[in-house]
């Protein structure tokens, strides 16, 4: 079984200076902020590895490939992916931002040329990303698509997919290939590999492949909105008191 996990190394937005937020453009240099894995992607990567472990344990063949479309993949991220158990890290050599169709085109072009399997991705890369890429990949590949996935278990050549939709769980059985977008999964962190294992992975490097991306979108404009909320501490003794104060403030009591 081939397992592909699409991921994106995002700028660590918590580290971005307020000044950069206020005058954000596509070209703003955020390199100083460092890059991290988005939380949904991190879940997807770990779920992919757990699937691989379970398949191997039950005697089936399994391979995990981590796939990213980015020129900016920090070496420590690719190293930790190899050390965690990915057989291959593929880096498509293009930087595409704010263009989900183009991202999906390039990722699915690669997937079309690779042996078929399960394709996992985080529901949304970062908060500024569209969340549309996984579904667009499924459309381009003509594969079934499952969103809001929490876990995937192998099941006799099939997969049991647990989804969290409208505050209820739905369990679906599907035969790969398919595309799954991982959402709020309890599996939230990529496993840490021991240093010995990291060292044993030697100097494995991501496989860099050319990607003929369209020119970057130039017509994007960002505007910082200076919106603040006034906050007041209610001098209430209890929640009932607080409720009455709020109602009064809203004109609910005469």
């Amino acid at each position, binding site marked *: 079984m081939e397992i592909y996990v699409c991921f994106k190394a995002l700028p*660590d937005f*918590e*580290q971005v*200076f307020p000044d950069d937020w206020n005058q954000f453009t596509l070209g703003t240099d955020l*390199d*100083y*902020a*460092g*890059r991290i894995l988005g939380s949904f992607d991190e879940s997807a990567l770990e779920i992919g590895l757990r699937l691989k472990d379970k398949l191997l344990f039950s005697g089936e063949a399994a391979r995990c490939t981590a796939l990213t479309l980015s020129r900016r993949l*920090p*070496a*420590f991220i690719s190293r930790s992916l190899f050390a965690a158990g990915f057989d291959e890290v593929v880096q498509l050599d293009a930087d595409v931002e704010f263009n989900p169709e183009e991202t999906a085109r390039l990722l699915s072009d690669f997937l079309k040329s690779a042996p078929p399997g399960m394709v996992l991705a985080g529901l949304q890369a970062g908060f500024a990303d569209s969340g549309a890429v996984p579904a667009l990949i499924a459309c381009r590949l003509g594969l079934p698509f499952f969103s809001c996935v929490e876990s995937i278990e192998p099941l006799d050549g099939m997969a049991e997919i647990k989804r969290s939709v409208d505050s209820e769980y739905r369990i679906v059985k599907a035969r790969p290939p398919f595309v799954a977008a991982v959402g709020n999964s309890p599996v*939230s*962190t990529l496993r*840490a*590999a*021991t*240093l*010995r294992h*990291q*060292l044993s992975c030697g100097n494995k490097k991501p496989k860099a492949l050319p990607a003929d991306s369209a020119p970057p979108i130039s017509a994007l404009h960002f505007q910082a909105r200076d919106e603040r909320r006034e906050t007041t501490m209610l001098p209430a003794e209890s929640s009932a008191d607080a409720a009455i104060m709020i109602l009064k403030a809203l004109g609910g009591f005469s």
Partner: protein
Amino acid sequence: MESSALVQALAELIGEDQVSSDPAVLRECSRDYIGFRQYERGDGKFWEPKAACVAWPRNSVEVSSLLAFLNANGADAAPRTGGSCVSLGSEPVEGGVIVDGSRMNELIELNEKDLFVTASCGVSLEYLENYLNNRGWTTGHFPQSLPMAQIGGLVATRSIGQFSTLYGGIEDMVLGLEAVLPDGRIIKIKNVPRRSAGPDLRQIFIGSEGAIGFITQVSLKIFRYAPENRWMGAFGIDTMHKGLDALREIMSAGWHPAVLRLHDPVEMERDFGNIAPEGNCILLVIAEGPKALAAATGEGVKEILKGFGAADLGARPVQRWLIHRNDVCGRLDHFDYYKMGAVADTCEISATWSKIGEIYDAVLERLPQESESLVVVSGHSSHSYTTGTNIYFSFGAMVDKAENARPIYMNIVRVIMEETLKRGGSIAHHHGSGKYRTQWMPQEHGSSYILLEKIKEALDPNRIMNKGVLLKIEE
């Protein structure tokens, strides 16, 4: 003495509201942030010793009557203020009393003529620093635990701040102090700029870790606060050894930037967004003081670094570090490492220039061999002197169950201690001995260890004060 009788006697002595034996309060007041305790707590295990009670004296006189009573009754006392200790130093002894100075939080005097501030032991450093900043002054003391630590603990641990290369460690900042001896005597060391009247008695208490008395009041030097004059720069440098050589060159040339930090390639990638060329270390510099001096210092340091082939990375990595350097304090009780299944911490040592690089190499080589579940080890130098520097190792290792967190952790610490001692370095640069490094203290001090024993014997003959720190407990 029976636990309940002890609690009652203390309540009568300093007031009922000033004493508690509530298990939740005791747990809170026994907390220490050493890595394996964080893991254990994450796992719902509370294995720290259980004190009989915690007592919160409100002034030196109450501390005096408390200690005198405990001393007369042979009850153990564990001093504490901010509770940010990371070395088991603020954990109580089973059945003992936690003497918590955090309610002694009076800012006593700001003397702008003689340039010092006097504060009670429970004044939080962050509060004090903000108070001073608003009036154009600073203590110059910026440990990462600034939002947590209080004056008593900062002095008792011989702490150091991130701007130490200019302002020094706490030992350079304390002008005078007041402390209470175990027999209840209140002693005061006066505020003078310098004197030649015998050994410097302040230093007996600075770093005493609660083992000989309770520090009640401290006078600290103050400096002009002018952050607008800061010069900042970050540099990539290709190896740790070259970086250490560069630090030595900067220090020996006579420059005193406030911040001079050299992070190894692992930290450059992980904590600084991989902004330097791959495999490089990153060196952060902040110079401050009068504008002309800050600028000259910055440019002087830059010139030296140029000679080492350092890549100029601009000021942004430093600005980022400055904003986020203490963020970890807010996450300590989130059990992030426990959730990852890991025990993690830091361990700081120091040595002369000729040995420090060897220690760094030896630790990085030995740890992966001797700690099977190690996932990361890195190091940085953050406090430099003309004669040498420190290395602050960070490590993380996977743990299968809470019982194993401590042995896995101590196995890592052991390697760092051994490699340091082998080369004549110091096993504790600024977190103190606490109770976890005590076993190595005889080797740390060699023939002068006896002085520590004698001081303890003279000042705390009944050995009631913070048993287990600094000195090995006699069987």
